[in-house]
């Protein structure tokens, strides 16, 4: 006698959490390379800075997350082809990137802790009085607000990258360029709240994050930007057609 296919409802595990775990682990592996490069650059090139690795890594992490957002957008066709709904992919992806943003922030915070211990115990010619490894916000030294601000801002840049990817995936390249310009506009407006946000770099003088407006307003702006991007990305992916030739 023919056997019936096992009950199709046998797994009720949340698919989006599986997607989140998958995407998180893949992107953490890529990020490990990024962290290693930053540490090497820091140790061999910028060691004698007055800023710690936490503040100095910030600009690079923004760009890294922007690129990662563009690259990771490309997982969408794979998941939909393998039976994951666009909604579950979206939720998983949003969650994974959020986790990654905090993970990177925490890792660089821990590295700066190690850095402080080294400086405190070995005389490396660093002026400890002017050095504050966690100072990425002018006037603030508590580590948790630094970690939060770092994570939120790099998350917003990841979403900008994802937004750009969708512009190119869903529309013609001309529209894609339009999405790039829109992302640039978002970044510019964001920069009005966070000084020197537009051109973050390793350069000594602009590595600090400093809110031009009161800090809570700047944080609120970041949260609003994240919210806006999340809504736009959901609308763009809600019923997005998957091109068979590209999967």
């Amino acid at each position: 006698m023919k056997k019936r296919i096992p009950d199709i409802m046998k797994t009720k595990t949340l698919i989006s959490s599986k997607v989140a775990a998958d995407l998180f682990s893949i992107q953490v592996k890529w990020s490990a390379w990024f962290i290693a490069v930053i540490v090497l650059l820091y140790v061999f090139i910028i060691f004698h800075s007055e800023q710690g690795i936490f503040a100095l890594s910030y600009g690079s992490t923004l760009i890294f997350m922007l690129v990662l957002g563009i690259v990771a957008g490309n997982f969408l066709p794979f998941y939909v082809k393998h039976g994951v709904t666009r909604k579950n992919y979206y939720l998983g992806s949003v969650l994974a990137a959020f986790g990654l943003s905090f993970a990177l922030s925490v890792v660089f915070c821990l590295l700066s802790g190690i850095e402080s211990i080294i400086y405190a115990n070995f005389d490396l010619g660093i002026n400890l009085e002017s050095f504050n490894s966690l100072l990425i916000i002018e006037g603030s030294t508590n580590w948790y607000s630094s970690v939060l601000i770092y994570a939120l801002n790099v998350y917003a840049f990841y979403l900008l990258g994802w937004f750009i990817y969708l512009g190119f995936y869903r529309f013609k390249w001309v529209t894609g360029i339009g999405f790039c310009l829109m992302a640039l506009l978002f970044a510019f407006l964001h920069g009005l709240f966070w000084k020197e946000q537009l051109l973050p770099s390793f350069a000594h003088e602009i590595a600090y994050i400093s809110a031009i407006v009161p800090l809570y307003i700047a944080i609120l702006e970041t949260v609003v930007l994240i919210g806006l991007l999340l809504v736009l990305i959901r609308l763009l992916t809600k019923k997005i057609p998957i091109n068979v030739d590209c999967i």
Partner: protein
Amino acid sequence: MNFNVEVKDLFLSYKDFVALKYLSFRLEDKKIYGLIGRNGAGKTSLLSLLASLREPTKGSITIAGVPPIENPEIMQNVAFIHQADYRDETSTAKKLLELVAQYRPNYDATYAEYLVQRFNLPVDRAVNKLSQEMQAVLDVIIGLASRAPLTIFDEVYLGMDASARMIFYQEILDDQAKFPRLFIISTHLVPEMDNLFDEVLILHQGRLILKEESKALISRGLTITGPVTEVDEFVQDRNVIGEKHLGKTKVVMVFADNNTENNEELKKEAQRRGFEASQISLQDLFIQLTDEREEN
């Protein structure tokens, strides 16, 4: 749950190109369907709609009674397998199988392992380093081992050599016997597959021109060979779908207008008159039917 597929007035256009023109049909659970059409007939467009990869412009699809798009219960049970682009896939085949397994509730890892051995797939190699044939084999293994109640193979086997294709056909039949499910297999290479199909759908220029049980379909067609004038006279009231001249001999293909008509009588009559009469192959039937439509 019953995975019947119901398609009504399905219409799909990409900007100014019309890919599918008002298709309506019903597919029954646990059968193997052959979707036959020339390149560009709309096969992949139709299958990508069934796999929820895009929405139709007009019309509706239901699978197991509900619209499939964005329905997690349906989508995880519909496997769409085609020749995937693996240029950037640096994971090993083994890792990829494990990844896919997570999203397929009926995935059978033991069966996948058996298929890996049977097809000699080097699972520890990066997927983008596999030969084109082995990439196709990987797709086939994903499709079979997922045991999705609706499994779609879209010309995935084109990159495989003859012996691998034979294993593939054999596995479909064997596994279908153990775990009956609805297969849709699209192809334009009919000869080696015609035994596989319970029913055949022929798609031509975005239209469904025929849907019928494959045995009944073949029995409707007849090839009659004989002297030109005599054959012409014999088939004059018949539906002639193709003819060839070989000197004074003529080969005519006739196709019964409906499946109740009995070709056996006609065949006997033709043989009695000294003509050569034989059943048309599915391939010939397909070529003639789609040729004729183009002329019209």
